[in-house]
């Protein structure tokens, strides 16, 4: 590994080593894999496999998906017991009801209760309910999170500021290419008078991964 990495955030170590570097300017190409990515895109367009418009549409679609999608699912489950039952019965169908179709993977919703807390990881890589939460944060893809949350989940949660008492059971769900998990956090006390939109605004990304509570 080279040490003169000034204004260059690809230090080729691990993903979690990057966050402190400022975003690199978009008008310079810094790495071989950036060149390879451009080359692949141009070749695949030349061969008619994909079009530039299709690639752009997928980028725009990805940009449009934020944790607000998942928050709507959670808020509906909080206010509508029948919806809540459907969500735990068939996550894909319940998400689709709210306009969030998930294809190719099975969505499993898991519920936090006063005596059970859930947290999600993908130990092998980065599988994540992207259609409901957007792209995973860097730490979700980091070696430290993936390696440790299955062995010492309470310690990892503590690093996120979440202290679980010993009498709360902690379930860790390891995602696969086929199954994605969504944590339904506990509805905070004192929110009886809030409407669904106001409730959704309380639901954070990290609470739906399970590293935080609300």
């Amino acid at each position, binding site marked *: 590994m080279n040490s003169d990495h000034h204004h260059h955030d690809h230090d080729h170590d691990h993903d979690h080593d990057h966050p402190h570097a400022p975003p690199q300017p978009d008008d310079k190409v810094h790495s*071989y*894999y950036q060149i*390879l990515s451009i080359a*692949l895109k141009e070749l695949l367009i030349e061969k008619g496999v*994909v079009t530039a418009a299709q690639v752009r549409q997928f980028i725009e679609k990805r940009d449009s998906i934020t944790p607000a999608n998942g928050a709507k699912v959670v808020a509906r489950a909080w206010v509508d017991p029948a919806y809540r039952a459907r969500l735990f019965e068939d996550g894909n169908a319940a998400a689709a009801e709210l306009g969030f179709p998930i294809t190719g993977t099975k969505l499993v919703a898991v519920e936090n209760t006063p005596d059970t807390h859930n947290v999600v990881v993908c130990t092998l890589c980065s599988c994540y309910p992207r259609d409901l939460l957007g792209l995973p944060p860097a730490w979700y893809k980091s070696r430290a999170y993936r*390696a440790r949350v*299955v062995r010492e989940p309470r310690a990892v949660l503590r690093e996120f500021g979440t202290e679980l008492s010993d009498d709360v059971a902690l379930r860790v769900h390891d995602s696969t290419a086929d199954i994605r998990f969504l944590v339904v956090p506990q509805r905070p006390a004192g929110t009886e008078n809030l409407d669904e939109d106001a409730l959704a605004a309380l639901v954070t990304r990290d609470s739906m991964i399970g590293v935080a509570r609300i």
Partner: protein
Amino acid sequence: MRTPQDIGGLPEGPVDPSEHMLNFWEKQADGLRAAVGAKGLMSSHESRRAIESLGEDAMERLTYYERWTAALSLQMVERGVLTQDEIDAKVAQVRQRLADTGELEMTPSEAEKLP
């Protein structure tokens, strides 16, 4: 035996919870992978298999979207969509073009990785 991506339960240091915004090229790489996937040319299983086949060195040295890009290249060759020669020639061409327009700014260690 553990394969390089199979790290669940291994000892590691603290989790760095900082957020990392994607660079433009990483978004491009994500969009390209999604578009190829939508054509039925790369399922999430194929993507996973290709990334895992890159080996321990790639897991250690490459960033997330660098691995995705290496895996996409591998998958396109294995699928017969592109040949390695085509890819190598295009990489050389793109590199030259970026150098000519002053858009290329590589460290010596990056430049050494060029074929």
